[in-house]
């Protein structure tokens, strides 16, 4: 399977990257899967809407000066009392739900991606070191990983969050809060990367080309990064995709539990937390739209991840 993928690369060194990609099995499998295409389109659409939010929505929900209590508790536009330009209605502060959802979506995506970046870097680094160096260091890293797997990620994130707040005092500004959440997510999700990378490294380490690289005098870190790492990109990419969904859920959960992003700078989780209070008073739209946005985002990314896993490794079911 690997050989088949590599042959065209050797034969046509002049072909562009795009041409090679269009020729690949991955692309063929993508074209065959309607689910994958739909999920991809949905994901791209949500990314685009989220990052174009400042130019397409009527309000900046983070700017208290733009909120007007006179516009509070308006239902969506298709209801009798609905008012332009508030397409999806407003909450009790006069905050436009559509604006808040798109800004929240953007925040969720940023935090999620940063979280994946941190956990990926941490996990890949530790996995490389554990697999390549071995010995006591390997034992320690993998033991810590085992113990950590005992707990669900959300519990770890909550503990990291709580400890950090205790250590730095309660008064954290918004940027520090975002950073804290990113770090919490990073510390919660590194284990899977580390395990995957470590086992691949253990396999690759014995192979001829690594031995050859060592013989021509390349240093250990260079061998690891240049020669071993490219061989684990497939599985790592799959983990990262699925992890993005998990990271977004974790951020949303933290915010929902009230230990994440504050109400002055709401993410989707915070919006759901706010909207949950209005569930019984009939203002369902305040919670429904952030909920739908979150669910749609996570399901789309998960579907992509599922397809990617099957496409890159047909042997895994």
């Amino acid at each position, binding site marked *: 399977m690997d050989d088949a993928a590599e042959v065209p690369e050797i034969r046509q060194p002049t072909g562009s990257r795009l041409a090679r990609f269009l020729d690949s099995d991955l692309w063929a499998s993508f074209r065959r899967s309607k689910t994958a295409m739909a999920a991809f389109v949905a994901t791209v659409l949500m990314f685009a809407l989220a990052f174009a939010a400042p130019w397409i929505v009527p309000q900046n929900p983070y700017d208290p000066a733009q909120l007007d209590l006179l516009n509070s508790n308006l239902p969506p536009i298709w209801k009798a009392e609905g008012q332009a330009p508030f397409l999806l209605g407003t909450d009790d502060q006069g905050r436009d739900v559509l604006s808040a959802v798109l800004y929240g979506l953007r925040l969720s995506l940023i935090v999620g991606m940063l979280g994946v970046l941190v956990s990926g870097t941490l996990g890949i680094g530790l996995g490389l070191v554990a697999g390549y160096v071995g010995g006591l260091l390997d034992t320690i890293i993998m033991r810590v990983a085992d113990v950590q797997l*005992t707990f669900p990620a*959300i*519990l770890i994130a909550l*503990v990291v969050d709580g*400890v950090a707040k*205790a250590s730095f005092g309660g008064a954290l500004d918004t940027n520090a809060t975002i950073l804290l959440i990113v770090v919490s997510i990073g510390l919660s999700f590194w284990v899977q990367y580390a395990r995957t990378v470590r086992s691949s490294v253990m396999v690759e380490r014995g192979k001829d080309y690594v031995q050859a690289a060592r013989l021509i005098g390349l240093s250990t870190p260079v061998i690891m990064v240049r020669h071993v790492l490219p061989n684990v990109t497939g599985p790592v990419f799959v983990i990262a995709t699925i992890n993005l969904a998990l990271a977004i859920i974790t951020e949303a*959960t933290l915010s*929902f539990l009230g230990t994440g992003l504050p109400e002055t700078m709401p993410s989707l989780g915070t919006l759901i937390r706010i909207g949950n209070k209005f569930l019984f008073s009939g203002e369902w739209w305040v*919670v429904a739209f952030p909920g739908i946005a979150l*669910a749609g985002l996570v399901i789309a990314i998960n579907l992509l991840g599922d397809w990617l896993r099957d496409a890159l490794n047909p042997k895994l079911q």
Partner: protein
Amino acid sequence: MLAFLIRRLAQAFVVLGVVGLIAFAMFRFAGDPVNQIVGPDTPVSERAAIRKSLGLDDPMLVQFGRYAGNVLRGDFGISYQFRQPVTALLAERIPATLELAFCATLFALGVGILMGVYCALKRDTVLAKLFQAVSLIGVSLPTFLIGILLIFLFSVTLGWLPSYGRGDTVRIGGWTTGFLTVSGLKALILPSVTLGLYQMTLIMRLVRAEMLEVLRTDYIRFARARGLTTRAIHFGHALKNTLVPVITIAGLQLGSVIAFSIITETVFQWPGMGLLFVQAVQNVDIPIMSAYLLLVAAIFVTINLVVDLLYTVVDPRLRTSVGRAA
């Protein structure tokens, strides 16, 4: 057998030791414990005296030893927010969490195995495909969103089930139970489904994949060649072999159900340990956080041990090979 058991016990103690160390570090270093006791304008000399009386100047090893000793005696310190012993606070809330986790696991196992078997035996039917699609959504959606959705459907719109709390409970000794009253049982339904849904979809997918695998094995083919009835083949042979690995996973899931109940308890304002823990995180109540962490680790490790033992009972191959190794 005995050697195996001792090895597993040793591993369990290592895990507990590491978690204990983390809990101690949190307890000792996250914020200054003295600040939690004194006011902002307490003079430095008095603070020093308190430090000394609390033993905070002793060598670390001594402090950890003292902490471990206290924990083993069931003393987790005083909650910062409630000014009460953490042990009493937790003890009061354990029944709520355990009853919830029990019902959620029952739901996850019962429905998950049923749906998984159905999907494996009738893999090409519309219903099986529907189950598969729904399971993907179940795995994807955040727990709190499912909880809110269920509340919206069954509490707000239909008004059938309560949206928060445990309903009426009955106290038996130190244990409060919701199993003995109608309102208590009704209050259990939504939180249990919310909490168990994720595990249910996992178990369903696992059972399906595992059973499809088993149905392809030689001994199932041989069982068919022996002319056994379809019923005997599917439920006597295939299902039994399917459930061996499922037991392990399901057992381990029970541990995470307890930890995951943090979210469900918050959504439904369920007065259990999870809700207490979330409040502790919000209010930076370190003693409760560290105690909860240790408790969850202890429960998890115990479940692990029980599952290992159960596994050897169910699988004869393991039983004898373990026996021989001993």
